[in-house]
Structure formats: C-alpha cells, structure tokens
C-alpha cells in the first residue's frame, strides 16, 4: 500500500515536469541590471543605461555583464565607467567633497525652517494674554459629556465657522 502511494506520488511529480525543458537564457544578471540602472546613458536625456534603447547603452550593458562574469566588484565596474565618462555618469553622485552640499543643504533648510516655525509658535503664544487663553480653550476639552458629545460639538462648531455659513 505504502509503495503504491509512493509510486503514485513519483508519477505525479514526473508528470509535472515537461517533456522538454524550455527554460530561457538569462542574458543580463540581476546584478548587471542593478549596476546599469545606477549609470546614466551618456548620450541620452535622463535615461539610465538599463533603460535606454540606444546602441551605446546596449554595448555598455554587455560590458557590465562581461565584467560581472569576470568577477569584478560593483565598485570596480563603477570606477571603470567614472574614469571614462566622469562623475556625471553616476545617477547617485558620490557623497564626498562638494556633493555633500547636495545632502546637507536640505537638512540645514529643514532645520532652519523648523527653528523659524518653533520661534513663531512660542513667540506668538507668549504675546497673547494668559486669561484669554483659558477662556478660549476648545469646547471639546470640557469635562462634561461623552466622547461623541464632544465630537458633535466640535463638528457643529466647524460647520458654523466654515465658509458655507450664511453671511
């Protein structure tokens, strides 16, 4: 009985394998594609070596594949192309020297923006009278009523204040 089941299983498995295997050749390995996508096609506008239909890009893809097959590292391949075409070929410019400003200027801008925003909020708060603040506290902060009740009040207050209100 056990043998019969095993044979049946084996037959099933064999049956699943097609008579002639027609698996495809993979011309460019995933690593090659990744490297090609990190390089700009030098003669195109805004396309990577991976995506460009130009002949140069096609040759470059083949060169990358050869180098990958020859066991060269990603960095070696990248510097090979940088030597020939300049840093402009890298889609992700190297994080060193002048290029660091690319990264730090946004960070600095965000920090300055946050600082301005912070001072604006604190300063404005200081200017208004404390008594007023207490009185104008939001209705939803009142101690009475259920959550829904509070929401309802806020909801209706929003309606009243929206631009749909009758003039």
């Amino acid at each position, binding site marked *: 009985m056990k043998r019969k089941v095993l044979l049946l299983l084996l037959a099933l498995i064999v049956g699943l394998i097609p008579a002639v295997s027609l698996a495809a050749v993979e011309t460019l390995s995933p690593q090659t594609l990744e490297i090609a996508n990190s390089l700009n096609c030098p003669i195109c506008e805004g396309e990577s070596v991976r*995506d460009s239909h130009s002949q140069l890009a096609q040759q470059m893809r083949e060169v990358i594949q050869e180098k990958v097959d020859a066991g060269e590292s990603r960095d070696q391949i990248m510097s090979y192309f940088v030597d020939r075409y*300049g840093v402009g070929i890298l889609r992700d410019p190297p994080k060193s020297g002048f290029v660091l400003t690319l990264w730090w200027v946004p960070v600095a801008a965000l920090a300055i923006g946050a600082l301005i925003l912070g001072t604006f909020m604190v300063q404005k*708060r200081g200017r208004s009278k404390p008594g007023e603040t207490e009185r104008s506290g939001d209705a939803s902060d009142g101690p009475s009523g259920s959550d829904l009740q509070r929401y309802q009040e806020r909801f209706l207050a929003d309606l009243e204040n929206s631009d749909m209100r009758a003039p």
Partner: protein
Amino acid sequence: MAQLGSGALIIALALAIYGILAGVIGARRNVPELVDSAVRAVWGVTALILVAAASLITAFATHDFRLVYVAGRSSVDMPLHYVLAAFYGGQEGSLLYWSMIAGLLSSLALLLHRQRDRALVPYMAATVLSVETFLLVILTVVASPFTLYPAALTPTNGVGLNPLLRDPGMMAHPPFLLAGFASFTVPFGFAMAALITGRLGSDWIRAIRRWALVSWGILGVGLLLGAWWAYHVLGWGGYWGWDPVENVALLPWLTATAFIHSVIVQERRGMLKVWNMSLVVASFILSVFGTFTVRSGLISSVHSFAVSPLGPWFLGYLSLVIIVAVGLVVYRIPGLQSDRAIESVVSRESGFLVNNLLFTALAFVTFWGTVFPLVSELFRDTKLTVGPPFYDQVNGPILLALLVLMGIGPLLAWRKSSPRLLLKNLFWPVMAGLIVIPPLLYFLRAPIPVIALAVTVFGLGTVVLEYVRGARVRRRNTGESYPRAVVMLVRKNGRRYGGYIVHIAMALLAFGIIGSHFFQVERQFTLNPGETATIRGYTLTYQGLENRMTVEGQVIGAKLAVAKNGVHRGDLESYRFFYRNYENQPTARMGIKSVGLDDVYVVLDQWDTTGNSQVVSLRIFINPLVNWIWLGGVVYVIGMLTLLWPAPSPARQRTASPVREAVLREA
C-alpha cells in the same frame, strides 16, 4: 489661416496692453467705465487667442504645410486625433494653449467675481493681461506658430509628430499639465490685486482658495496622467523617475497643496496672511519656471524634445515677476499682520504649520536636486547628475512624516487640544497601524517598507475614524442610516469630508508607491518561441514575434502568455514602433498584465528577425500595487470635485442651527 491667426495675436497683444493701462488708470482715477473696459479687454484678448487657436487647429486639420509649425509636427498619414493633438505638441502651440487656458479661466473668474470683489477687479484684469502680454510678445515676435515657408519651399507632406508623443497619453497629459500651469494665473491675479489694493481681508481669500483648488486639481491630474504615460511607454518599470521636468511640474503642486491647507488657518483664525500670499505667488512663479524649464533645455531631461531660444525671455520674465511680487509682499507685510496668535503648540493651527513646513521642505528638496547639476557646473565645473536615489533618501522620510501628520492633524482641535484627549482619539488609528505590523513583517520580511505601510494604515485609520464619528453624530441627530449619513456628511460639509477623500487618495498612492518601490523585481531573458521565463511565481511563455508595416511605420510586437502557479491568467503584447521619418527614435508600448495585486510588465529590449529566428530579449518586471496608484488617482479626482462642488445654499444651511441648539440644551 496663418494671416488670420497671426493677425488675431497681434491685435490681442495691442488690446492686452490697452487693458492693463485701462485697468490701472481706471482704478487710480476711479473711472468705472475704464475698469469695465479692462475687464472686457480680458474677454476680448481671450476671444482673439481662441481665434488664433482655432485657425491653428484648422491648419492642422487641413494639412496646411505652408505653416512651418504644422509641417514640423504632423503629416498626412497620421491619425486625425494625433494631428489635432500636435497643436500643443511643440513649444509655439503649447504656449498658445497656455495663454488660451489662462485667458479662459481668467475670463470666467472675472465674470463670476466682477460684482462681488469690485475693488480687486481692475488689478486682477491688469495682472492677467500682463501675463498674456508676455506670452503674446513671445507668440508674435519670438516663436510664432504661424510662421510660413517661402512659397517655393512648402513641403508636400509634414515630418510627423515626435514619436514619443504618439500615444493615447498625448491626448490627456499635456493638456492637463499645461492647463494646470496656466491656471495658476487666476489665483496669482487675485493675490496681486489684493496686494496692490491692500484689501487683505478675508473676502478675497475665498476666491483665491477656490481658484487655487482648481489649479491644484488640474495640475494633480496632469501629473498622474504623466505618471501613467511614463509607466506604459518609457519602459523602466516605473511611473515617476524624478526627472527634472517631472520635478518642476511637481513644485507648484506642492506649494499649492501647502496653500490649500494653510488657507484654512487664515479663514478660521486670521493668521498666516503673509505666508499664504507668498505661497500663491510662489505657485505661479514655479509654474512659469516649470514652463520655462521644459522649453529651455537648461536641464537635461526626457522631455527635451522642445528645446528653443526662449530661455532668456523666460528668465527675464521670471526675474521681473519675482521682483515685483516679492516687493509687493514685503511692502504689505505691515497690513498682513495676524488678527490672532497661536495659543498652543498642540492645536490644529500648529498641525497645519507643520504640514506647511513639510510641504515646503519637499518643494525645496525637489528644487535643490533639480538645479544642483547647474550649481555644480557653475561653481565646480563638474557635470553631475542627481538621480532618483537622492530624492528617495531625502523626500522619502519627509513623505513618511506627512503621512504621520495626516493621521494626527485631523484629530487636533482648533486653538488648543488637551494632550489627554488627543491620545485618546489616537487610540484606534494607532492600533490599526500596530496591528498590521506583525503579519506584514512575517510576509514581507523587510522592516522599512513595513513601517511605511503601517504609518499609511495609521493615516487612513484617522480618516476612517473621522467618517465614523461624523456619521454617528448625524445618525444621532437625524436618524439617518450610516451609508446615508456618510453621503450627507460629504454633501453638507464638502470641504472637510471632501478633503478627507483626498487623504484617502494619498494613502492609496502611498500603498502603491511603497509596494512598487520596495518589492519590484526585474529580470532579463532571451527567449525563443515556446520558451518560458520564470519570475516570482509567474511563468511567461513567449509565443512569437509580430512584424508588420502600417501607414505610419513599422510595428514589432512580442506575444506572451502569463501564468501564475501554473494557471493561465491572460496574454500580453509588448510593442516597439518605428515611425516614418523617426526610424532612429524607436518608441514602445509595454506589455502590462495585471494579475491580482501585481503588474506583470514586459519590455521588448532586442529582437532578431533574420530568417526564421524570432529570438527576443525581454526585460520582465513584477510591479506590486501599481494599480493602487491609478485607483488613488481616481479617488483624488472625486475628492477634488467634492471640494469644488458649490456649497449648499445658505437657506438650507440654516436648518443646522436648531439641531445645534437642541444639542446644547441637551448638554
């Protein structure tokens, strides 16, 4: 036709200059007749531009190749819809289209507001006409679409449209995007009028808000259509490549998004007047910058088919607008002081301020990355490229922060929120976000996208909570069923609940972007007919190559059958096109088959048609959740229309008051 068109443009230019003078003098000397005349000048200029546009379209439709513009962009064998779309397929035509949309929307705005906002009208008209004057100078002097060939040189057939533009996307993306740019003329006109007159009360802010929403909506649709076009044509498996031209189109959308949030603070609390003015002005300036960057070829991009000598003109105009607008804002700063102050850091106001900080940061980063190659070339003499990795790493976290804020902001109360209550309100959305983490982590095994997905769920949770609570309130007061209560919520308070519809759209976009960004796989295969390629559970069987000639050129198509786990799920075909006159610029249409949450996306890379061989080289992508982006686009349009839908009439609105009184008595 050419004489009619160019004649109309010259008269329009003269009329525009007259209108500016009439508006300004009429307002200064208080001559209502002159002011009316300026308004009519806007309508007249628009009508004349329409005449010019109609004559250009007629020239295309009748294949009048005496016109250089028509001969350079169309041919007799092109299908009629592309012949007509070629109208905006080059820079002269697209600028004519720009001025036409600006004119039409401004005319409509003046028609609607001419009675109510009387004081603003003359300067609004003058501002719009100054924009038109600039464009008309360009269209008559520098880049006329009506330039003729000398009689002897008139070609018998045109060259045809640039192949990249021969796609159904051409019918929708450029008209929306250009209209989005052009439409910022209207809020800019209102803003300038308010700044010049010093009438900075809240009456005009509603008009500006409404028209800024229109621009924001149109531009957003244009951007989404562009993403969709790029996805099925450009063949890099994506929909957004942080290409400079994409970036500059995104910039005004970002500042406009910031504005439609912060304007709420001004309406409710009388704050941020200077800031809101600056955002409106910035959106217009960035629209001009966007138009200019596409035309100038200043920055290398996939859109560089429209390079021209217009650069200096646009740069000059841009500088002029910046100087005048910034000068006016600075001059009016004393009059733009806040009526009130911020009372608490934990308040809706602060939420909107942080929102604005993040949106302007996004705009700044995008702008900085776009112009950095120029900066580098100027100061260091090195050619650099700032590609997607920079934007992913810098804008990614900002977008994530915006999603967090989308979850918190709506729960904040105006003026002052008690932290205790806020935490209580946050309970369910936070729980929703936390609950999805373990299963997602188990299936996806990558922490960063899981965090991003959880944050998106959190943001969506807040929107759902808002609808649920709003519907419960309505149900309690009116006894409506829940579905009806939700519909009525949106109808009665379209601004708030329509805004949340846009938030839902953003969450859907976020899911789509996270899914396709982090979980895309791609492989390259070389296949003979009958062979299969296997990629992440999908089996693609190559069925053969199709090679045919059409009137327009040659079409190559590879047919594949898609199966998942052995079950056939459909067929797809990936094409390459070689158009007549553009054989060296092949274009493509990707084979895309949506299976469940995934898109199977096939790029026809290389092929061999010698003899009987039909070997092809294909690049196959599996793109998860991309469909959610398109779904998000549809929801965005619904939300935008809800926001623009006229508010219920005041008479109907008053019925809300007895309910409120009843509620207060009950309390």
